[in-house]
């Protein structure tokens, strides 16, 4: 039996899927014959949790104990399978050395390699005002999109050109962008490197058609669950389409409205094509009275792009208090954030658990998190920020690691350590040592840098220790001694690579009791990410001949210090642990694509154009680099163009989906917060603000 279920958020679809998983196991299905495909790692966690909560195997006679179900994202599946089947496909796919293990790149390394490869040709983009990391990011994104939609790289320029109505010079620029994607691809193939795009391309073009692989998946995945199928890219749908004829049971679930991962290649239209392969389509919905904001969401969505009507009455949701305006006349952004904090405090005082409160905003800036944390701390309310992947360097723990490397990693030039300022050292120490605040850290850093401008030396100034507290002395000395010993490593051969060095620093010092990273799971995660990123960099770059080996640590430090924007395609990072005393803070799309619902939602910056704008990038395009657009272009006789009108309709459509999606995930009250000026002092009146004017 193969079912396709569609419904709004909160209709209970995922719960049904999880129950189905448990029911299969209860019924004696072999666990390793089950595939659960999710759109995000967070969703995969939900299913693992359901599995863990299921009755133990002994409780049910029929239940088998063979293996584990495969639960994960399409990304993790392709990575796994491309790795396992690499010898089978390396030759046909054109890899340089079929006997060597492939290396899967992350975005930092991919950008680094791209930068090295195309550096001499960047003048072609001189008319565009794009900082280099952005430029490189867009060149890579084009390749990603081509792989996920399944069209060849040499269509990029034509497709981009079909959305361009202006000066011909841009068409040449698109051609160059396409060439560079090709150059990068050739380099990756030659060196057995798989970036995000090549991983998917190889999977779709070489692995999926392979007869041996087809047999493997037909035997292996007899029972298939697909959650949020609308958030997956077309090649994932191709994969599911291969499974459907051979498997015994399948349930595919679609959220409607959905498609929020459009910019990550999600394609709801190609998901819907899978309906034809199922035995039936079922629509699920929760009763209207259990969805207090659904009506408001529909009205608001209806007002998007509509001709304004002058209203005589206020919207019912506003009248009966389900919707409240915050800071409506206020000028400044910070005042808005403070009004939001007050509203949260009010909610908690009236009995709403903090975990049931979510703040969603088009962008989540550091200051937003900070201001909320400061305002809520006294009330014992925490802030749990969920953010899409960000540059590693943005985390204080990364910065501390970088500072210590600059002070202690031997092969770096002496100037690097001499350039560490007191302030930077103070920050690193306060991160590294438990309970050490910035002010005391600064006292220590000043004395230490005074004693030596090149190293962190143990400080023996009794008066100072008396001042800041002798309890910190042992820790500072320990860090200094460790760095000193690390610097003393003589021969190049014994020198641990930077990633290992950081691992040692963390394991031997920073994670020990009394140090700042002991028992801090978030910090451990960050260090782990940094270590893995540095190792990958070393492994991917050292044999490519593109950079001298001795230069690697310095280049890596420069790379992360530059703050490469982790691209949108990178799978999201581990989320903070749920915490009953914290409110959730998330960007709109992260909230919508995570497994979130809340009793109270607060929408920030409702005037901001960020609610309505897609990311307009000069060198890439989310609509023309899709599978659907390929069909449009292929129509004979018509010159297809993506026009301004298409653009407007697409934006309005997306905003409607966002509005309805958010309201579907809100079980109680909604606050709409605004300020006349945005964080950067700009005045905005975006489409959401206009729709609200028409609704309220």
């Amino acid at each position: 039996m193969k079912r396709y279920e569609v419904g709004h958020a909160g209709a209970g679809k995922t719960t049904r899927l999880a129950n189905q998983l448990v029911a299969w196991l209860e019924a004696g299905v072999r666990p390793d014959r089950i595939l659960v495909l999710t759109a995000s790692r967070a969703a995969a966690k939900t299913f693992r949790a359901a599995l863990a909560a299921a009755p133990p195997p002994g409780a049910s006679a029929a239940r088998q104990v063979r293996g584990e179900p495969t639960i994960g994202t399409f990304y993790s599946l392709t990575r796994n399978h491309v790795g396992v089947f690499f010898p089978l496909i390396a030759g046909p796919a054109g890899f340089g050395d079929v006997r060597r293990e492939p290396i899967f790149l992350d975005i930092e390394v991919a950008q680094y390699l791209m930068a090295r490869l195309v550096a001499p040709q960047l003048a072609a983009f001189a008319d565009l005002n794009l900082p280099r990391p952005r430029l490189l990011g867009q060149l890579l994104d084009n390749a990603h999109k081509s792989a996920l939609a399944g069209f060849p790289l040499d269509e990029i320029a034509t497709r981009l050109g079909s959305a361009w109505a202006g000066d011909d010079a841009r068409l040449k620029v698109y051609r160059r962008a396409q060439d560079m994607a090709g150059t990068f691809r050739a380099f990756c193939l030659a060196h057995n490197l798989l970036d995000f795009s090549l991983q998917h391309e190889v999977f779709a073009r070489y692995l999926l058609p392979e007869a041996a692989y087809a047999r493997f998946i037909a035997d292996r995945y007899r029972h298939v669950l697909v959650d949020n199928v609308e958030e997956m890219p077309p090649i994932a749908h191709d994969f599911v389409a291969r499974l459907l004829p051979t498997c015994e049971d399948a349930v595919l679930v679609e959220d409607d409205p959905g498609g929020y991962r459009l910019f990550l290649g999600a394609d709801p239209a190609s998901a819907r094509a899978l309906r034809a392969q199922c035995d039936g389509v079922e629509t699920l919905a929760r009763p209207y009275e259990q969805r207090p904001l659904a009506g408001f969401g529909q009205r608001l969505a209806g007002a998007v792009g509509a001709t304004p009507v002058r209203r005589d009455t206020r919207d019912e949701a506003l009248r009966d208090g389900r919707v409240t305006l915050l800071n409506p006349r206020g000028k400044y952004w910070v005042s808005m954030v403070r009004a939001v904090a007050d509203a949260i405090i009010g909610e908690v005082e009236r009995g709403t658990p903090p975990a049931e409160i979510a703040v969603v905003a088009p962008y989540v800036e550091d200051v937003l998190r900070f201001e909320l944390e400061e305002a809520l701390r006294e009330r014992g309310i925490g802030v749990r920020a969920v953010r899409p992947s960000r540059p590693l360097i943005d985390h204080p723990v990364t910065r501390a690691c970088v500072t210590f490397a600059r002070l202690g990693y031997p092969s770096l030039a002496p100037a690097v350590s001499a350039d560490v300022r007191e302030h930077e050292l103070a920050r690193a120490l306060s991160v590294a040592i438990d309970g050490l605040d910035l002010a005391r850290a600064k006292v220590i850093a000043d004395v230490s840098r005074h004693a030596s401008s090149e190293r962190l030396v143990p400080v023996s100034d009794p008066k100072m220790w008396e001042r800041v507290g002798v309890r910190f002395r042992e820790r500072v000395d320990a860090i200094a001694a460790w760095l000193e010993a690390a610097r003393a490593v003589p021969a190049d051969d014994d020198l641990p690579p930077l990633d290992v060095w950081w691992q040692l620093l963390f394991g031997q010092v920073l994670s020990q009791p009394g140090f700042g990273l002991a028992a801090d799971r978030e910090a451990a995660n960050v260090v782990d990410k940094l270590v893995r990123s540095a190792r990958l960099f070393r492994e991917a770059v050292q044999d490519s001949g593109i950079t001298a080996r001795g230069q690697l640590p310095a280049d890596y430090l420069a790379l992360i210090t530059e703050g490469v924007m982790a691209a949108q395609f990178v799978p999201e990072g581990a989320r903070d642990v749920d915490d009953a005393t914290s409110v959730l803070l998330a960007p709109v799309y992260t909230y919508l694509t995570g497994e979130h619902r809340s009793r109270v939602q607060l929408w920030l910056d409702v005037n901001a154009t960020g609610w309505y704008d897609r990311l307009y990038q000069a060198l890439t395009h989310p609509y023309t680099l899709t599978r659907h657009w390929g069909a449009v272009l292929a129509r004979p006789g018509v010159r297809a163009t993506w026009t301004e009108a298409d653009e407007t309709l697409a934006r309005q459509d997306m905003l409607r989906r966002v509005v309805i999606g958010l309201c579907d995930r809100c079980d109680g009250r909604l606050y709409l917060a605004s300020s006349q000026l945005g964080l950067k002092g700009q005045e905005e009146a975006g489409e959401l603000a206009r729709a609200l004017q028409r609704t309220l």
Partner: protein
Amino acid sequence: MTVQTFRLRPEQEAIAAYAGGLLRVSAVPGSGKTQTLAALVARLLKDGRVPPEGEILIVTFTNSAVDNIRARVRGLLTEQGALGDVGYRVVTLHGLAYLIIRERPDLAGTDPDFAMDDEGGGQQTLPEAVRWYRARNDAYWRSFIANDTAARSRDKAEKGWANDTEKLARDVIRQAKNLRWSSARLKAVLEAQREPLSPFLTMGAALYARYEELLRDAGRLDFDDLIVRAVLALDNDEAFRQRLGRRFAFILEDEAQDSTPLQEEILSRLSRDHGNWARVGDPNQAIMTTFTASSVRFFREEFPRRPGVRDLPLSVSGRSAPAIIALANRLAAWSEGAHPEIEVRARALSAQTLIRPTDENDPQRNPPDQPGAIQAIAFPDEETQAKRVAEGALEYVRQNPDRTCATLAPTNRFGQLIVDAFEGLLKPGEPTRYEDHLNNSVGVRNVADVLASAVAVCASPQRGQGLSDLRKALRALADGAPRKPKNDHVDTLLHSALVERLLFPSPLGEPPLPGKVPVTEPELREISALSRRAAKWVRASALPIDQLLLTIAHDTLTEEADLAIAHSLAVTARREAAQNPVWDLPQLSAQLTDIARNKQRYLSRSLLESGFVPRPGIITVTTLHKAKGLEWDRVYLTCLDANEFPHDADAQFRGEAWYLGGRDPALEARVQLEEIATALREGREPALDARALARAGRIEYIAERLRLLYVGVTRARRELRLSYASERGQGRGRNVPALALADLWSNR
């Protein structure tokens, strides 16, 4: 004048009745154009002329004008029972360009997260480009310094030439951008020229190339890029242009005389389909032409020649006494009819719309004429002029504590002489009777001081001095007066405190204050409140720099104008930090301190921009340029000599440097570039005769200085004091009064 009591005069009524089409309004100073514009907006909305999907776009020159117009429109609409904020939008021209680019950065060819490289304090990119150029072309660059420059003056000459190089770069870049030429295009055009070019123009082009590169690498746009790229976005997609045109169903442009040709291109494109574009301005007050690339000619001559343009005056003004009005009108008439340089006549001031006083029934009657309202005085030298002007102004406010007064100088340098003169004239114990608004206003300095001290605490949270400075800065801000250097008992306590224990009390309860010094309960409370605030900022110090500043600002500032300043400083700081990775809190604090101490300019084009309102009994010391849009009961106009306000295009000019053999690099390059561009447009060979070009540049300068003079005269409500020094000082010869007003001195 409150909104309620405002009644439209017949001229204003005619404008408020505008229902569409192209319109030009020539408004004289003080004629109530903002109020008329607001009435027009309210009328259009009330009469339902704005289609439901559209809105009225009101474009103006400064942010303060935006607030001002919005407040008035909102007032009128609320009065009529309509929603205050629906159906119209008020922006600056740059704000409009920003909005267009934000809408489709891909069409504008820029990153969606572009940052602004504005002209606020410490603009870094241009000096960096100049440094780069000099490092590579040192000998060539030095070769311009005149050979006969004495060895001891060489340092001075180099310094001067370095400043000139920056100005040269700024002017060439600005002009090229207004032509929509990239540096590559400019280079190509210059290389195609057959006649030899001014070396300054080629140098300017090289600087432009580097500047462009620096901006691009950092993903930044400067103000001119905003305009260029907004036009580009509109040109790159006709459907996009049409959509915005439908959205902005009416375009009302304030201060239209200051718009640059390229800015006009934006409005012209937006109004192309509906043709509803009303432009309000005073061509006689166009004093931004050499700062921006604005060209008054378009508003004055070319726009009215478009088919179907209606022309309406706003000529009635209740601002000044009749004698002052007469002087301003006479200035305009002389300039247009009798100026010795014929080319100046058509370019400087227009006598087409003369100022008329209000009639008897007008709610805003002109102040009455009084004997000796206008006096012209010649002083023997600069120092005497500064001293006597200061004395006179001081005497005036002592005797008329309810009147306002200003001393306006053409340069900061002379303004500073007046400030210095005040220092010696105040009686012991006398309250401060003047405010120095030459560089940074007291408000800007106090805000910068608070931010600087707070950031200093973040940078060095362990220093007692830091908390004490912060406390003084907060007090100065509360008093609206300069910071008092004296320490009181609390300061002494803070100096001897272990501040880290104050900010972050340890669980062991170690005492933060030295045990021996006595301390009272209120003192303890104050110290602990201050410490709590400071501790928050220290915790915030890992935030991006602009966000840290905003957090501090919203914890300390309440006044609207102060917050606006802080926001603008935050923008500047973000840019600096993006540019310079090692830039951290200590550097930020140092820069803010420079602004607080007036060492570095935080640029606002006019006092009005920073929300300034003249206070009775307090003398405003500022420059003519910054006085735009303001009025005082008595106004001192200083340095009205033929050097500052020249009339002879063959005489030596101020900008022309002795160390460069009398050449003015920026002017030379600008004029030549303009000729090349014009010739290219007209399909002819450019006439690059250096002398003729230099002369043309001087004519523009003469005209602009006359308009500046006109602005000065029309700032006065009741009395005008005009002066100049007959000796130029340092043996540089004798001065004669500016020709435009020379008879005031000779008739005496």
